[in-house]
């Protein structure tokens, strides 16, 4: 499974919908983790630094988890 995950991460031909969803799960976990560490809800920059991503990427990825079908649907319409 580790191999597959690395493949998904490294291969730029993977669809955005899939890649962002993976990132969104990491963000959710980071939010929980940092909330415990700080005893309060983390800011966007704190999450971004923790995951070594830009704040804007955090925002884009987070949206992918909200509506599982929204990004994908248009392809099949």
């Amino acid at each position, binding site marked *: 499974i580790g191999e597959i995950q690395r493949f998904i991460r490294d291969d730029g031909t993977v669809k955005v919908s899939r890649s962002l969803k993976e990132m969104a799960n990491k963000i959710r976990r980071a939010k929980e983790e940092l909330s415990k560490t*700080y005893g*309060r*809800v983390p800011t966007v920059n704190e999450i971004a630094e923790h995951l070594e991503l830009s704040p804007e990427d955090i*925002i884009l990825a987070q949206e992918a988890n909200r509506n599982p079908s929204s990004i994908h649907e248009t392809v099949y319409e």
Partner: protein
Amino acid sequence: MKNKMEIQFSALSQNESFARITVAAFIAQLDPTMDELTEIKTVVSEAVTNSIIHGYENDPNGVIYIAVILDGDTIELTIRDEGIGIDDVEEAKQPLFTTKPELERSGMGFTIMENFMDEIHVISHQGEGTIIRLKKHLARNKALCN
């Protein structure tokens, strides 16, 4: 320092996500908490959905306008449509009031906007469209307040 942006987009339901991300990405400059961000995205969703389903009654030729001004810790958010407008704004703002009960809408859109933002002003005229002006001050010294 002031920073300003404006967007406009087709009144299509898939653009709700786009609007949420765009507003969130812009206010990310003020380093809000993840919760503040969620609140503002929810407000954007409610207002944009209203413009799509009520204002333009799902006509994709409609155009929705959003403007955001950042001034210090204050966010000024304006969401505007040129749709059918609201007959009685005070009535529309009442919790649970809805003109589309058949859509399983909750009638809580305006209530959510009022709760998540510090100020709300609604300007609407029938046949002309609707402008929602919202303001929110982000909490300073987040580490201390929590």
